[in-house]
């Protein structure tokens, strides 16, 4: 970019500053002092910067040296010491800056990766424990089936299926709700309030409608609903049994064959069609065969205590089953 001599005739800044330092000073610089009659345009700062990147001081110092001769030996020595110190400083600065940039990134990275590791190991732990719990539950149910008579175990399984303690499968319907895409105001370009966002109320009314239409097992995004399940909002997220779920919401229900028709014919179905047309919420209701609904988390009793714990070891009777239906065995109760 910097021009060698040729185009640089206007030497600017009174000529004294950059007169002699143009890249070894080709004779072009001579035009400066003897052309006062000509109209001269001083180069602006940026042009000057591009043309003469070298500090003008060097040229001036060289000229001064040429005028006054070499400085004394002592001052040369001190100048050399100063130069060395500055060079050492510059090198140190480079090293420190490098160290700082390299050292500061791993620090945050380290923390993050250790957190990620923590999360992973905890997840693995939970998975392992979940697996163990499943195995133990299988064992328990097998042992119980052995201990119970045929009729009793069948009745117990039905009860379990109804209460959501075990996985169930069957035909039914799937209701899918998706948040409307964010609306952007065409004038201001800002996001307007999204009225088509799925709320906890929407999910609640879908579930209630499905129950009313005869659904026997419902799961929202894989979370099985039981008698004590909650669907509510915390901040921006919807929680089902305190577990956060996000859009798209998939409500899987097992029920009668005409579940979808019943849902569509209900006032709730009507409401959601309106939501879809007016607020662009995406709603789909489909009939589907062979659905699987997962088991809910084990119900935990914090306050209530089963009355029949003393009789848990005795082989079951009809009375025992009815009064102790939440399975009072200590192994299952955690």
């Amino acid at each position, binding site marked *: 970019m910097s021009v060698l001599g040729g185009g640089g005739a206007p030497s600017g800044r009174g000529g004294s500053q950059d007169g002699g330092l143009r890249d070894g000073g080709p004779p072009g610089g001579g035009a400066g002092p003897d052309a006062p009659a000509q109209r001269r345009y001083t180069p602006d700062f940026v042009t000057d910067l591009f043309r003469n*990147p*070298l500090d003008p001081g060097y040229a001036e*110092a060289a000229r001064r040296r040429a005028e006054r001769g070499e400085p004394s030996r002592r001052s040369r020595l001190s100048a050399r010491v100063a*130069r060395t110190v500055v060079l050492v*400083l510059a*090198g140190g600065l480079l090293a420190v800056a490098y160290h700082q940039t390299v050292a500061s990134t791993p620090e945050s990275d380290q923390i993050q990766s250790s957190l990620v590791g923590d999360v992973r190991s905890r997840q693995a732990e939970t998975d392992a424990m979940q697996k163990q719990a499943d195995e133990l539950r299988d064992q328990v149910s097998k042992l119980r089936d052995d201990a119970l008579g045929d009729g009793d175990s069948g009745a117990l399984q039905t009860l379990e299926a109804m209460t959501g303690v075990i996985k169930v499968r069957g035909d039914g319907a799937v209701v899918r709700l998706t948040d409307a895409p964010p609306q952007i105001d065409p004038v201001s370009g800002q996001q307007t309030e999204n009225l088509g966002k799925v709320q906890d109320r929407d999910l609640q009314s879908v579930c209630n409608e499905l129950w009313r239409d005869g659904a026997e097992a419902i799961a929202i995004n894989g979370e099985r609903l039981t008698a004590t399940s909650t669907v509510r909002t915390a901040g921006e997220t919807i929680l089902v049994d305190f577990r956060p779920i996000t859009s798209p919401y998939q409500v899987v229900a097992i029920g009668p064959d005409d579940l979808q028709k019943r849902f569509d014919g209900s006032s709730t179905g009507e409401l959601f069609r309106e939501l879809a047309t007016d607020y662009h919420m995406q709603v789909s209701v489909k009939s589907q065969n062979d659905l699987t609904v997962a088991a809910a988390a084990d119900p935990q009793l914090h306050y209530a205590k089963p009355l029949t714990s003393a009789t848990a070891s005795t082989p079951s009777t009809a009375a025992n089953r009815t009064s102790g239906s939440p399975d009072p065995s200590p192994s299952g109760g955690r």
Partner: protein
Amino acid sequence: MFAVLALIAGVALGVVFEPSVPLALQPYLPIAVVAALDAVFGGIRAKLEGIFDDKQFVISFVSNVLVAALIVYLGDQLGVGSQLSTGVVVVLGVRIFGNVAGIRRRLFRA
């Protein structure tokens, strides 16, 4: 040659001692590095052109670093720190490129 050795010694010292920079000075470190690089390349070019001067080099280094840091500090106080540091980097970068081009021309005649 001696100068290169001094520079390397500085780097070695920095690596060995790993001095920790106070938190308040950390934002100025990158700018200081660019300013120091400008002074160093200016010095190299002056050396190659035979007009190197110790005093000029020392003063340009110190003032470059201080002024660059001062400008960034002022910018931070005024709320335009990032813009001003961009400006400093552009100006110093142009100078570094120009000086390196001069060095290149000296060394390779190209």
